[in-house]
């Protein structure tokens, strides 16, 4: 079965590692990181993961622009790695205005974006990000969001941008179904990265309610390992067609709908 990891990190974290146990609750433990793409690829080979959408950890630990550069540099080493970039408010950093950003994305093979609003001290709302998020909706560009600073941010963003494609990632150890079920139910373009979907029978229960097209396989490496999410998927014993959609089909479809 083909596996495409929707979200993995390369680079060394400033702190190894800041791990989300659940929203607003961090644990700092030393994980095995992949400083460079080669190390991530070796781990992907070991676990049978074909491709990955990656970010460089300096995007969060240092600054978005530097992290974007580093992401592209590492992703350029293999056609199995696909870069994702972070965004900032265009009103302060004009390079994130859609008319500037999107051609850059196209040139660099970037099809998905990430935002860390609280870390970078801005609101992911219409006042601050309206033009960019509207344009992302129009172009079907997915935005990776983590509720590490609270779920309200994601709820509020989607209230204002209901057509935005959002992949929820890095949501921590505790089961988060009470948060993301309502989002998946209310917004047709919300997807859940399976990397943190550890709750017992979670994938089976989710698919029985929302079908098999709203989950995307992810590792959230290095906060998580690859093996846990892979085994959880096989252990769900869903029918093969569903497993294939979650393992690679859904993320392939989402990215194929991006119009840059």
């Amino acid at each position, binding site marked *: 079965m*083909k*596996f495409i990891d929707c979200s993995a990190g390369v680079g060394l974290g400033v702190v190894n*590692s800041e*791990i989300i*146990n*659940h929203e607003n609750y961090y*644990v*700092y*433990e*030393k*994980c*095995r*990181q992949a400083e460079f793409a080669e190390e991530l690829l070796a*781990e992907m*080979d*070991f*676990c*049978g*993961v*074909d491709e990955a959408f990656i970010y460089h950890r300096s995007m969060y630990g240092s600054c978005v622009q530097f992290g974007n550069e580093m992401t592209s540099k590492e992703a350029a080493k293999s056609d199995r790695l696909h870069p994702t970039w972070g965004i900032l408010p265009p009103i302060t950093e004009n390079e994130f205005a859609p008319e500037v950003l999107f051609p850059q994305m196209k040139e660099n093979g970037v099809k998905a974006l990430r935002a860390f609003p609280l870390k970078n001290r801005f609101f992911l709302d219409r006042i601050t990000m309206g033009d960019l998020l509207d344009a992302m909706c129009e172009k079907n560009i997915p935005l990776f969001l983590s509720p590490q600073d609270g779920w309200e941010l994601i709820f509020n963003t989607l209230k204002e941008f209901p057509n935005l494609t959002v992949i929820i990632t890095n949501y921590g*150890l*505790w*089961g988060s*179904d*009470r948060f993301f*079920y309502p989002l998946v139910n209310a917004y047709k373009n919300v997807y859940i990265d399976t990397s943190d979907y*550890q*709750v*017992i*029978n*979670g994938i*089976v*229960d989710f698919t029985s309610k929302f079908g098999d097209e709203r989950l995307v396989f992810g590792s959230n*490496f*290095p*906060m*998580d*390992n*690859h*093996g*846990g*999410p*892979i*085994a*959880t998927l*096989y*252990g*769900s*014993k869903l029918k093969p067609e569903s497993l294939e959609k979650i393992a690679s089909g859904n993320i392939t479809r989402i990215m194929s709908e991006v119009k840059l």
Partner: protein
Amino acid sequence: MNMTNPSALAKEFIENGMLKSFKVIDAHTHMGRMDGTYVSKANADEMVEMMDKTGIECCYCSPHSALHDTTIMNGELEEAMKKYPDRFKGYYLFNPNYHERYLLHMDDILNIEGYIGMKFLPTYHRYPLDGANYAEAFEFADKYGLVILMHTWGNNDPHNAPRHVDMVASKYKNLKVIMGHSAPGELDNSIEVVNKYDNVYLDLCDIHRHSGIVDKMVEKVGADKIVYGTDAPWYDFAYGIGSVLFSHISDDDKYKILRGNAEKLAKR
């Protein structure tokens, strides 16, 4: 693509959605619904259904009702052990805030089929492992060579950090300590304590999910001192199994972690 992981056990899991070579023993589980998380399978019957699905032979268990309700105490566990004697073994929850009540029934551990030891939850009970109210329970466990699954946490936790386990283990040599979660945030300190004492073990519960943790544990303490635990029904059995099967250790070591060590620990 084909994985380069040479593990026959990993391949077996991929083919079957469970292990076929042997049944797994989960040394750290609970039972029942709880406040923080929605779980679709939680009571004893549902847990057995999930265990069957994932190839789990037995759960060493302390239900949420025991952890957090001092009236029912260990009643739900005892019912489950009676109904499923081969599927659930028990940790007698001891709440030090009501220690007299728990001491009164302590002999149940010896008299009721299925008990293998005790469960301590110091952080949640806001009572330190080295506090006086735990003393009699430790002495009892030491006298009979019981297993104690104790919640441990890092970040300089005032109730159950590795330093507390160190103090306990230096005094009690006959009981067997499983450091629940292996004190995330202070894994290095947990490793130090486990290497210092023959009767202290690391637990994979929760911490297994991070990249490289299983490899590190095996490298630092050896596979004989690590048990597989999941916190089920908080978490799916398969996730933790995957963390082990896709680690860079031998299948022999995987067997010890997923079954062998827990099996030995439960023998008195």
